[in-house]
């Protein structure tokens, strides 16, 4: 027996679906009224609850692929809704699952090709994700692969599963965690040694005119490579989940659940960015109350 998303969760998702939509729409209206943070190139309403910190990001989003991030989220929701309908009608197909995986593949690989160095920073800390969302689950700019597996473990908590499924899951978790640790090491190495390579500490050895950008580019290429590996690991995690741990139906159920959990986290995190009182006037700034 494959891992199962419990029925009561299923019902909860349906019940909260309306709540999610309302929250998303509410935030869209509020943020839209600010007029400076919303990605106007995105025609969707629900997912426009992205908050950015600086005005200049808008231009960037309009021009770059980050302007499409909201579309990706909306598309995910549409696909999840379609899958859910198919599940209800009990005619979910292998094609639908592969289609869903293909979308993840395209998404993760489309985002690993920045055209400007400046984009690399956006990949790591997308302005489309509110700070609470980033702090809660982000790892190199998106979901930590082992967190995807943790979510499944949590969702499957109430259901029974065979020892072979448990074993497959445990093996997958072990494998993914090792790969994550390798990428973590790589990133830590870049952050720890950048002082040796970036030409900021005065030294005639590093002061060659015109070479500054070369040094910076080299470091950013390393970061870009780490991000690319992280994206591939995310996709690999989903792919192995579908192929080795979940069956067709359960995979469809999981995709639906995954998208909805993402939405709830995103919307809740976006809500936490809104002003809470008179002392926190501008949302984009962090306010500290202290003995300054």
């Amino acid at each position, binding site marked *: 027996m494959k891992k199962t998303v419990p029925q009561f969760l299923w019902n*909860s998702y349906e*019940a*909260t679906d309306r709540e999610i939509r309302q929250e998303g729409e509410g935030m869209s209206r509020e943020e839209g009224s600010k007029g400076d943070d919303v990605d106007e190139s995105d025609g969707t309403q629900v997912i426009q609850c992205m908050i950015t910190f600086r005005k200049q990001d808008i231009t960037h989003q309009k021009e770059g692929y980050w302007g499409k991030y909201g579309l990706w989220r909306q598309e995910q929701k549409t696909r999840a809704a379609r899958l859910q309908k198919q599940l209800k009608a009990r005619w979910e197909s292998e094609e639908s699952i592969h289609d869903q*995986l*293909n979308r993840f*593949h395209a998404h993760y*690989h489309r985002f*690993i090709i920045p*055209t*400007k*160095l*400046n984009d690399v*920073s956006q990949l790591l800390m997308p302005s489309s994700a509110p*700070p*609470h969302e980033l*702090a*809660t689950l982000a790892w190199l700019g998106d979901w930590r692969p*082992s967190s995807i597996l*943790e979510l499944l473990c*949590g*969702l*499957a*908590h109430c259901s029974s599963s065979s020892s072979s499924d448990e074993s497959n899951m445990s093996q997958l978790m072990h494998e993914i965690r090792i790969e994550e640790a390798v990428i973590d090491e790589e990133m*830590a190495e870049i952050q*720890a*040694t*950048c*002082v*040796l390579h*970036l030409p*900021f*500490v*005065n*030294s*005639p050895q590093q*002061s060659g005119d015109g070479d*500054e*950008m070369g040094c*910076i580019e080299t470091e*950013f*290429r390393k*970061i*870009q*490579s*780490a991000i*690319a*590996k992280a994206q*591939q690991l995310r*996709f690999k995690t989903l*792919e192995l989940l579908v192929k080795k741990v979940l069956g067709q139906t359960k995979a469809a159920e999981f995709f639906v659940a995954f998208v909805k*959990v993402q939405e*709830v*986290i995103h919307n*809740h995190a976006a809500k*936490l960015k809104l002003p809470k009182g008179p002392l926190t006037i501008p949302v984009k700034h*962090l306010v*500290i109350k*202290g*003995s*300054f």
Partner: protein
Amino acid sequence: MPHFSFSDLFPTSTAAAKKPTPATVLFQDYYNEWFKTLKTTLLPLIHRSLTDPSPPALLSSHVHLLLHHFLSYYDALDLAATVSADNLPHLLHPPWRNSLERPFLFLGDLHPYLLTNLLRKFLREGGSESESDTERETQTDSEAAWQLGITAWKDPSDELMVKIEQIERGLRLIVPSFSERMKKAQAGFMKKVGEQWIGTATVAEAMKIEMDEMVSVFLDANRARRSVISEIVGTLNLYQGALFLEGLAQFLVGFKDPGLVRKFKRHRIPSTVAGISGGAGGKSADGN
């Protein structure tokens, strides 16, 4: 001697100062002032002390000022994180750091290993450049300072090397636990969300628990950074300590060089490079 404190950075009126309630300041404003003081006052001050013959007492006082300035920043970060866990996400991904600097941040600031690597850089350059650089005849101001620096790092004592290794060992013991704890906090959040799902309420509760743990990791990381900077300066002699702090300040200031940042933002990645995918493989989902 100028003394910089929070109250200097954010002077309040006499009437306001009498009020029992603490002032509120935007962290971004605090950081901007902190950075401005570093760049326009403290860095030039220590640079002048290093290049011009200064009495040791004056150099020592400038070293103390700069050290205090760095440490005070970590105090401010701690304060911000403990006042409200809701501040933490902003501190971990600080919007007041620019896009050139952000990718190099670890838990919202410099990676602790970076501090010992900076020290190793000085030691290495001091040890390897002695012969060729003593032959230089014409020197710019910064080259002269660098020459003096070379002398400062020449033939470090065994005692110094042992102490540096001790600091590095200490870091190797503690830094991996930060990443591990962060990972566990994220895993715990996700598991809780999955197990106890009832919608937004579950997410809110799980997020709060996770943020509390992350605050603890953040404070520990700051403690590590603060104590490594202090230990390094305490271990080095006065001149070496001054050079180390100057280098650290230069490094931070370098990220905000307006001309460089402008070039950075415009800089396009060559298409052959942009296409790298870190061994992407690009394996398709349908197994092709």
